[in-house]
């Protein structure tokens, strides 16, 4: 982790990893989509509409996971002043906002046929919406200062403050029994979801995670390259 702080070494390592990551993403997402759309059985209650789940659940999981990553990277950046951690956090935030938006939109599209409404002010929906605004607030904050370093550190503190929302999202369906169904995969006593649906879901979740890693590496690399170009231009001009 600390050895990667050297941008040149990071560029070398990430350049070697990137094609493998991208390839694995393509394989997992393709396999996951085939499994989810054609192989997995329709639900006995929901029919074919249950297939929205294979996008909605991984997106929701990524929304939280990326925020946890953002907070972790922010903590590393604040504690060790790790320059790449700052970049990782800043480049992860728009991706997390994107996953959260996919989660909200797909949930809305799923809710219309199943619950009969696009939106309810349910605890989990509301807390995910808050998560979306935390991402937006973070992105706005890091760009709000003339000094980018100041923005990065303020953003890191905000990311750590916002982490209180993660347990609220996770446990909202247990604390307030509302319309959103309770956990059926990550629970004590094993998953309650049928294996024929669990496997496509897991493949999709792995695909989404790899997709995030790939995009994050691409974004971090282009950020570092942009900084290099700027430095070269300044040196020449």
């Amino acid at each position, binding site marked *: 982790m600390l050895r990667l702080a050297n941008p040149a070494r990071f560029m070398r390592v990430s350049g070697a990893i990137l094609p493998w990551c991208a390839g694995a993403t393509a394989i997992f997402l393709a396999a996951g989509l085939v499994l989810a759309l054609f192989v997995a059985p329709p639900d006995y209650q929901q029919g074919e509409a249950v297939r929205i789940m294979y996008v909605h659940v991984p997106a929701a999981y990524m929304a939280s996971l990326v925020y946890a990553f953002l907070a972790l990277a922010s903590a590393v950046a*604040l504690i060790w002043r790790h320059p790449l951690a700052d970049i990782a956090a800043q480049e992860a935030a728009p991706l997390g906002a994107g996953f959260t938006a996919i989660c909200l939109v797909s949930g809305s599209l799923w809710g219309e046929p199943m619950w009969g409404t696009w939106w309810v002010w349910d605890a989990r929906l*509301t807390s995910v919406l*808050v998560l979306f*605004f*935390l991402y*937006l*607030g973070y992105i*706005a*904050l890091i760009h*709000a*200062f*003339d000094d980018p370093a*100041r923005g990065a*550190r*303020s953003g890191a*503190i*905000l990311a*750590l*403050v*916002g982490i209180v*929302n993660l347990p*609220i999202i996770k446990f909202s369906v247990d604390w307030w029994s509302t319309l959103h169904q309770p956990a059926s995969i990550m629970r004590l006593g094993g998953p309650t979801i049928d294996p024929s649906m669990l496997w496509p879901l897991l493949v999709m979740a792995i695909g989404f995670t790899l997709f995030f890693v790939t995009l994050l590496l691409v974004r971090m690399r282009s950020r570092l390259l942009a900084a290099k170009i700027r430095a070269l231009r300044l040196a020449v001009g």
Partner: protein
Amino acid sequence: MNAWFLLVRRDLRLGIRQGGDAALVIAFFFLAAILFPLGVGPEPQILARIAPGILWVTALLAALLSLDRLFLADYEDGSLEALALTPLSLEAQVLAKAFAHWLGTGLPLTAIAPLLALLLHLDGAGYVALVVGMALGTPSLSLIGAVGAALTLGARRSVLLSLLVLPLYIPVLIFGVGAIEAAVAGLTARPHLLLLLALLLAAIPLAPIAAAAALRQALE
């Protein structure tokens, strides 16, 4: 401890002499709340139904109004740097400033809320929950707001503060309204009030730590 009270007194005095934020906050609270009867119509049943929400939402916005001034004046004239050099820890200073902010906004809002509730035809059973809830909830608003104010200190955009702080205000709003609605429905408001108290007890140590960290970044 003495220095702490001196800081609270200084901030209060500055607030009063610089034009009385408290009076403006109350005026805003009133104006914003009377927009609702004009907007949704004067039927007492409808107003009574949405009164808890109106009161809390407008109180929340009113508390937001003066937040950007919390550290800004001291930051601009350099006294924040002088304060940071005093033996009183920055965390304690944030707590003092948030307390002074609450005395200037949250406390008058709490005091005036029953009067507004009367105008909005709030059911008689809800008043105790309203006042106790406001008394427990508004200090959390000042504390959470202090974090936002410290984070955006010196930022180019002033709307940013609302974007950062409003999502974090949502729990206070939910439990504050929940307490009144429970009381009006004839249930006990106790769990909601205890949750508001829990939020406050968590915010008292945590918010000053986060805000002080943000202030140190601003002063670097």
